[in-house]
């Protein structure tokens, strides 16, 4: 039996001959089964997207909370009662008290309770004003002296006597 005869026999008995193929009902059922088995990408992606969003939010919150610039030092107190400390030799010091008259001559007519302005070296810190204790405590009991120094170097001294504030 040669090749041509075999081919002829095969075509005579081709299993497809007389077959009508899949019926429309079979096609519909098979198509539905196949498409039902297909994974749905949206449902697969949804949890992943939610997880990625949550992770991103957590990272952003952590970065914001741990950023070095976000931790600011506490602002210095602008006015505070500071205990007395030893006098500084270089800083000009004025001790004005009602009991101690001013030492310079141009200030002789000024009352002791008046505010005095002295130009001093600017402080190192950029605080608006600092309170420094006077080197000479008031001699009169009940008198109290408060000194301010502004960032520009101006020093302000208040003297409080006998429970009454005077400027």
């Amino acid at each position, binding site marked *: *039996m040669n*090749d041509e005869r*075999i*081919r002829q*026999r*095969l*075509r*005579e*008995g*081709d*299993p*497809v*001959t*007389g*077959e009508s*193929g*899949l019926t429309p009902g*079979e*096609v519909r059922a*098979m*198509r539905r*089964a*196949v*498409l039902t*088995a*297909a*994974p*749905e*990408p949206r449902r697969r992606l949804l949890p992943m997207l939610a997880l990625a969003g949550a992770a991103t939010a957590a990272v952003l919150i952590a970065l914001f909370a741990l950023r070095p610039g976000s931790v600011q030092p506490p602002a210095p107190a602008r006015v505070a009662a500071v205990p007395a400390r030893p006098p500084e030799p270089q800083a000009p010091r004025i001790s004005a008290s009602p009991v101690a008259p001013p030492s310079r001559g141009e200030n002789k007519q000024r009352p002791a309770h008046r505010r005095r302005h002295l130009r001093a070296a600017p402080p190192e810190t950029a605080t608006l004003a600092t309170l420094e204790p006077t080197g000479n405590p008031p001699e009169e009991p009940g008198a109290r002296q408060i000194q301010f120094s502004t960032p520009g170097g101006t020093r302000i001294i208040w003297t409080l006597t006998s429970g009454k504030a005077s400027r």
Partner: protein
Amino acid sequence: MNAPLTTSAILDTSRQGTPERLAGLFDAHHQRLFRLALRLSPDREEAHDLVQEAFLRAARQPSSVPDGAEEAWLVRTLVNLCRDRYRRLGVRSRAHESLRREEERVHPEAAAVARATVRAALARLAPRRRAVIVLHELEGMPAREVARLLGIAEVTVRWHLLTARRELARVLLEDRR
């Protein structure tokens, strides 16, 4: 009878989402795959199951179906499914012989007898060899195209053709006696 192997519709659907691509694959290839399955399997029910299983594999792993070579992938999957079933049926020749006898009894016409004879003869071949002889002799594909579809070398296709013809000649001569 034979549908074109590659269609522009498939290339278009390959760029769509998975369900749309799968629907395009099914619509373009299900009839042709069913004809091939009818030639490779002993009966219509098994052909139906083979086609459905091939498409189900494409549905479960859509990324394994290469773009532009969808039909070759489907044909290879179908042939592999045939091989799996062939291996599972240890008594395949006797089963197919009994099937042929049953079909001859139910349909005694000459055409039916011829179909049963050819089907039984094809069933004696190994699945890949059966696929090669079916694609070449019954579907009229050149050996190069058969090699491309099955993912094997062309020389292997020619060797399968030679061997399959010898086996078929022997079986068909035995059937004449």
